[in-house]
């Protein structure tokens, strides 16, 4: 018996610990120590003379930029957008999930020696050299193995990059291509009625175009069916939009980085089925302006005046016109695009509902019944023949 214990203790001495503890790498701030920046993006773009031709960069040119667009939402595929004060570039990378390595706000030093410049549809591009199927020199995505050779991170990513404001058509200049811009007070033509990029719609390159109206004219929003917001409904109303300005030949285009790039739009979901117990709300009524009849409910927020196609909303008393009231989902609505124009035909309806004679109805919730179609240049109700206040 004693021998057993002796043996056990002998062995015990020789046991080796097997719990390997690994050092947890800390969050390291990347630093770049190579050739300092010696050119700007504008300078690089000047090296590219002819459209359709590919130019190699043979000198040790380095520029300093910030990442403003990547593939985090799935809308952008295998590329990142970078910009400096002089312009922007889209850099094609043969890598998925680039947002993990190149987050928005990441400062990069791009050492261009060995890269090539080209263009696609009038858009400048940076990439790598390859021979395409037609045997021509072409610009291709930077293979994964070379990405670290050209793109160098410096510092932790920065927050809050200020986009450039585009306030008129004159602001749409080529130096803003591939950079982060902002439009205010835009409305989508398909607001509330279509999704950004549903599968099944005719697409070119897996993307779908939607038009929005801005103070710089009509701009094409281009969204990929792979975006995580592709099946979201385009918002109604007016708001601001931030994103990457691009171009295809002579058409200005715009790419969202994520759904959060849309700010200030109506966020009310459509509801109701047109019955008196469950009337359409305004958001839904605007969507369903196809000539059907039904009950619609909303707050009385004002009247309107002016030509049918270009009316002006009147939101405070005195409420001058009598043949129209404006309903909205929010009692404080002052944006015309979020309002439903209700015709008040001469007779009881007009006498009892008009705001001019009854300013006390202002901001009251009312249900109206009629034909849902267009009126006064927007979604609205004609032949209103019944109403009821919602107490």
């Amino acid at each position: 018996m004693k021998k057993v214990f002796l043996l056990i203790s002998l062995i015990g001495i020789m046991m080796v610990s097997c719990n390997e503890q690994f050092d947890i790498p800390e969050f390291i701030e990347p630093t770049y120590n190579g050739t300092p920046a010696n050119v700007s993006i504008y300078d690089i773009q000047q090296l590219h003379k002819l459209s359709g031709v590919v130019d190699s960069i043979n000198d040790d040119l380095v520029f300093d930029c910030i990442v403003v667009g990547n593939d985090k939402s799935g809308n952008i595929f295998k590329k990142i957008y970078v910009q400096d004060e002089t312009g922007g570039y889209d850099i094609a990378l043969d890598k998925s999930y680039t947002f993990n390595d190149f987050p928005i706000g990441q400062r990069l030093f791009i050492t261009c020696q060995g890269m090539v410049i080209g263009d696609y549809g009038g858009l400048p591009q940076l990439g790598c050299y390859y021979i395409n199927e037609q045997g021509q020199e072409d610009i291709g995505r930077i293979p994964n193995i070379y990405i670290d050779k050209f793109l160098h991170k410096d510092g932790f990513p920065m927050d809050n990059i200020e986009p450039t404001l585009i306030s008129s058509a004159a602001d749409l200049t080529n130096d803003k291509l591939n950079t982060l811009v902002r439009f205010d007070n835009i409305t989508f033509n398909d607001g509330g009625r279509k999704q950004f990029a549903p599968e099944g719609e005719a697409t070119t390159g897996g993307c779908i175009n939607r038009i929005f109206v801005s103070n710089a004219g009509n701009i094409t929003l281009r969204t990929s069916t792979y975006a995580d917001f592709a099946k979201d409904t385009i918002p109604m109303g007016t708001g601001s939009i931030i994103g990457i300005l691009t171009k295809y030949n002579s058409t200005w285009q715009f790419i969202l980085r994520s759904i959060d790039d849309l700010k200030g739009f109506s966020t009310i979901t459509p509801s109701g089925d047109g019955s008196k117990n469950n009337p359409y709300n305004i958001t839904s009524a605007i969507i369903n302006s196809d000539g059907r009849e039904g009950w619609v409910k909303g707050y009385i927020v004002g009247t309107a005046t002016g030509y049918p196609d270009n009316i002006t909303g009147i939101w405070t008393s005195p409420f001058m016109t009598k043949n129209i009231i404006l309903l909205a989902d929010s009692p404080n609505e002052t944006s015309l695009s979020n309002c439903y124009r209700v015709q008040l035909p001469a007779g009881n309806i007009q006498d009892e509902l008009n705001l001019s004679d009854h300013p006390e109805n202002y901001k009251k919730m009312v249900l109206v019944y009629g034909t849902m179609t267009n009126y006064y240049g927007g979604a609205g109700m004609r032949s209103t023949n019944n109403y009821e206040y919602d107490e």
Partner: protein
Amino acid sequence: MRNKIFIFLLLLISCYASMAQWILSGRVVDEQAVPYQQVKIYLSTDTTRYVFTNDNGEFHINWLQPNSYILSIEIQSEIETFSVNSKAFHNTDSSITDIENFVVISNKPETTIDNDFLMEEVDIEGLTGNQNISEMLNSTKDPYEEVVAYKFSTAFFKRRGIASNYQNVCINGMRMNKLDANQASFYQWGALNDMFKNQTEATVYQPADFSASNIGGVINYNVKASSYRKGGKVGYTISNSTVTNRIVANYATGLMKNGLAVAAALAARFGREGYIEATPYYSYSYFLALEKRFGKHSLSLNGFGVWTSRGLSSACVQEVYDITNDPFYNPNWGYQGSKKRNSKIRKFHEPVILATHTWTINEKSYLETTFGVQFGFNRTSSLNWYNACNPRPDYYRYLPSYHQEASTANDVAIAWQNDVNTRQINWDRLYQVNHLSAENGEQARYILENRCIDYHQLSLSTNYKNELGEHTRLSIGLQIQRYHGNYYKTINDLLGGTYWLDIDQFAEQDYPDNENMYQNDLNNPNRKVVEGDRFGYDYNINSWYENLWTLANFSYNHINFYIGGNINGSHFWRIGNMKNGRYADNSYGKSAVNNFINGGIHAGITGKFIYNQFINFNITAQTLAPSAKVAYISPRINDKIVNHLKSEKNLVFDLSYIIKYRRVKARITGYCGFYKDLTKMSSFFHDDYKTYVDQTLSDINTRHIGIELGADVKIINCLSAFVGATYADHRYTSRPIAYITSENGTIDDVEETIYIKNFYVPNGPQAAVSFGLKFSHETMWFAEFACSYYDKIYIDFNPERRTSLAIAGLSMENDYDLITTITKQNRVKGQFILDASVGKLFYLKKFRLNLNLKINNILNNKKFITNGYEQLRFDFDEYDVNKHPAKYYYAYGTTFSLNVSLTF
């Protein structure tokens, strides 16, 4: 353990008329005159009838007439033979008056070769089917079985081409096969080989009488404390193989005067790195046996277990081995700081406790009952990722072949050779990416998860043996097992991240507006999990098995025959602990119970018509229930059962010619087996769709035929030659039906016919031979030299490539070559392996020092593909079989092991 044995025979002075019964007696002792107790003695030519030595080492055989015989003495599976003649007999009427010393020196070479390393379970990730090497060492040392156990295991040879669920492995009569897949895990007693040397095994001419039979063989390990001789051993082995250091220590008291016996063992195996880079191995084994004898009864208690943590390697495509110029490249590791960190660590601890009661009712009948429990955990870590690029360095898009541009492909190859962060996992980058997402309050992009199995299995077995008469032995037994396993995964390491969201990432992409569809657990949607939390899947498999069996053995002078049968029941069901979003109705809760009643008959006959030459024939017909593992198509997410689930039908028979002379032992066997209605299940992780793809094949029929040859020839006293060889033809004889499904629904389910009729069953080499010389000299020098050759090695195939869908759009006239390339079965080249060993035994007073050196694969052959499998993905668009080529695993180059042990 290998001592000289002196046998003293009592000589008879006078003998009376033959009316009196004749008895052959003897006493077995060692060189210090210490008797051997409980040692098995039998006639060399008839293993069905035997006696055991008593507490004084004495035995008496009463069924023989005075003549010349060769007796076998079996001590812990080592067999010593000695010849006796009629002078050794005495008559019951007379008394023993004189003793003549008859000294017989053991002439069997001492096996100082420590074969423990061959019993290492080789862990290979990604192998479909059974990974365990059968470690059945034949206790009667039939030359062919010895070659299978000690040589062919290097080549992952499967005896007769069948998987290990056809073997019954028992300890003290208790069946150890785990009911989920009906396989026993030899790693549960790894490094405790010294305590598991007492083996009884069914052979071609001797069926098992301690357990229900099974086609692949039955083995029983006797671990009762009294079965060990008094004494102990300490040993240390150093090697460059999978385990680099090994220490063993054990001690047994033997059966003491007070009827008590104790035995204990401890072992440790450790090494920071084995033959393959970054495969740390730490394993600690323990064993305790207690026994108390009360007259005719004995009560035994055993407890043993092995705690192990080890890093794994994985099979890779040939391109990877070519660009690294290293057939042992391991893709699972990378540097973290200055340390090598392996992402695939397997940890397990599955101890076993058993209690055995034996009752020697009388000299003709015996009852043994064992009740035991095996329980524990088995978990393997693995990388997982979300919205991030694949962290595995050998993902096909990170290889040179992905690039059409030659210069880029070349640069990738150069990067592989020079940059360890390209060639292996870049852990640092995983942490940096996770830190970034944590800064944004988002979930980790990369994690290490543990895929876990927790289980316990209760087993009861009872076995009654009776010698009904002079020629008949009857055995009858009952085995009952109950298995309960819990399968789940947990977060092992968040790698710098703060949480992980428990949803299915790709289902999320397909159903972005239907949140329910991408939930792994609808009862806990969108759960944020951290280290230690369960997520992903969580289900139980419960199973019962009961088997009533019997065997009747009849032995006569020239003929032995037996007949036996069993009837058994299998019952299993699944319990889901998570309600999967895509299978809300059939994932949570208890499934239907699957019941199968099966049975079998086996019989055999051995005839001896010429002295020491036998002919033997065996036949088995049985039906076998499917295991829970093959029945459920995707048990992680639902309780769907494969469509054509049924019991298998097996019919096997073999015919052997055996000779057993003192100098020549040989056997040649022809076997044939028909297996009908097999079901097979395999699962692989699809890197691009981030989901498991489950494949179940049913209605599989195979036919296995072959020849086995084994011979051991003593050339001169100290030198013998041996050979073991087999040539087989194991093929599929049906076109199975495959049901393929992806767990996140990204790929549509398909059910297809697989055109593999006449394909070879990829269960190891179908041609193998090993021959060599064994040297054992009275100066206690031992040596062995062996040459082995393996061929007819077919790699495991992708069933999807042998379907109509795979060649849809191709025509036999125009695309014949392409169709052949896609559908034919692939074979790897045959290989030679040379092994040698040398050893010396020193006797120092009361100790015996054993030194031996073993060298495997002397010629450093690094071209031996022991395992290959086609990836379970096929490029349906362009029919390019090279897009996802086969993965291979190579046998190690030259390995050595140097062993020092002290026995006392």
